């Protein structure tokens, strides 16, 4: 009897949490399919009618397609550089021998705590001086730099689990240090690479701060900035279109997440748990 009560309470709590975490997301996605007027009058009622109108509007009358393309280009380029550069540096930190190894590692980890906002003013003046404002690279570079610490942390962590014997064996087989990295370490770390990609994709795709400050032209805007496009004169906002754009913008992250969520959560715990 008592056990049953406990069980009921347990499930009630679990389901309550499920609703707290899940409902907002369901609402967010549904909102894109609801007429503007309903969002303004009865946003939390049961949807009376669903429509594709908002989506038709944003895909035919706005630049959402361009924005998605830009976000995709920025994400792909950043991710390639993040993986290549951070895995290389991590290899040196984890497996090679040199003085100040730990200091270098710690130097990178400082970046984990630096808020984006504090670098905006200097970066803006720096980029302006070399003519990088309003180019994709002005977004890619900061994203790359700010994502290095967490990526390096993940790679170093993984590499420290690779037995040194494997490297020794490769050396005896006559491999160069570059060969070891490319032919031994990289194939072994495919899983970690996927983790790093998945985690960074979310951050890079969702970037708001850097695109906001460094990108001006419609042609180069990313989707998170484009969400503010549906504002008429003096702040008059088209909520239906805005939510449709939001739904469109979170779609790729959800696909990646459902496809790779094991890898992603693995990444989260890899850094933290290693007992």
């Amino acid at each position: 009897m008592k056990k049953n009560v406990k069980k009921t309470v347990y499930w009630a709590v679990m389901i309550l949490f499920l609703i707290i975490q899940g409902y907002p997301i369901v609402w967010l996605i549904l909102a894109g399919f609801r007429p503007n007027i309903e969002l303004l009058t009865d946003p939390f009622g049961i949807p009376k009618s669903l429509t594709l109108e908002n989506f038709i509007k944003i895909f035919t009358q706005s630049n959402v397609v361009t924005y998605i393309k830009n976000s995709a280009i920025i994400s792909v380029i950043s991710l390639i550089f993040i993986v290549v550069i951070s895995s290389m540096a991590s290899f040196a930190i984890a497996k090679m021998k040199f003085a100040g190894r730990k200091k270098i590692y710690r130097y990178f980890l400082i970046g984990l705590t630096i808020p984006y906002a504090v670098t905006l003013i200097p970066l803006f003046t720096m980029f302006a001086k070399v003519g990088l404002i309003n180019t994709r690279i002005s977004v890619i570079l900061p994203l790359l730099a700010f994502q290095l610490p967490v990526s390096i942390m993940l790679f170093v962590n993984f590499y420290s689990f690779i037995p040194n014997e494997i490297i020794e064996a490769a050396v005896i087989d006559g491999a160069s240090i570059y060969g070891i990295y490319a032919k031994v370490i990289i194939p072994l770390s495919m899983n970690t690479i996927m983790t790093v990609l998945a985690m960074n994709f979310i951050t890079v795709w969702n970037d708001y701060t850097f695109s906001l400050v460094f990108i001006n032209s419609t042609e180069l805007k990313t989707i998170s900035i484009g969400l503010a496009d549906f504002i008429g004169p003096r702040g008059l906002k088209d909520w239906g279109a805005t939510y449709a754009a939001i739904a469109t913008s979170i779609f790729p992250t959800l696909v990646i997440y459902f496809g790779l969520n094991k890898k992603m959560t693995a990444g989260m715990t890899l850094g933290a748990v290693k007992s």
Partner: protein
Amino acid sequence: MKILRDKKAIAIFLLPAFIVYSLIVMVPIIVSIYYSLLDWNGIGKKTFIGLNNYIKLIGDNVFKQAFVNNILYIIIVMVLQLGFGFTIAVLLTYLKKGRGFIQTVYYIPSVITVIAISQLFTGFYSYEPMGLFNIFRKLLGLKPIAFLSEYKTVLWAVASVEGWQYIGIYMIIFYSALVSVSPDILEAARIDGASELQILFNIRIPAISNVIMLSCILSLVGALRGFAAPMNMTKGGPNHRSEILATYMYKKAFTSRDYGYGSAIAVVIVILSIIGVLLISKYMDNESE
């Protein structure tokens, strides 16, 4: 192994990351310190004014308010993320079926752009048309509240958004740590007649204390980085009641064009962050011992 001491190779592996990171993350911090000593509006002359911006900071009531708010903001975010994350993680360990599904759903908010999340919660908090929270209050027979306008509620409302969004991350970290505690020990304790609460406090929590510590630091640092949610929901208002250091810095620099003063605030944020770093490296030292 000589090959592992190859200096040239070390340089090739390390330098790209080192250069990009130094140039984009570290150099701007140093430049910020320099700017914070200037009076500069972005188009005019840069005038060196020494520590005047900092002296101004000390007398600035809004800055004080933002500072206090920021501490409160961090505490709210941490309590939500760690408290809920831990509770759910513990509960999850008792679950036999459907755990994967529940974990997946709990984690979803963490992957969604904060712009969408803040838009969503602005709607949830709304007074008119009635938002979700006020619908609940009405059902409970309470008077509706304009959460984002009331002085008393606004900071809580804004901080809860970031707190809520990342609960899933901490849930997963805690969960993985909890299941790594040997089941044999737990079983032995149960046979000895220990209650689940006793097991939790006497065995499980001590066993994962280092993970708890690290989670605290991660959550602290994450909260320090908070910016987009308050900026998008309230712009720090009403009357700075939800102002935090990052929003104040942004507004001073980019709205008021007081780049020197904005940079001084940025330097304060960096100092706070460095305290976070010290905590992290302390943790890492313990780890490597």
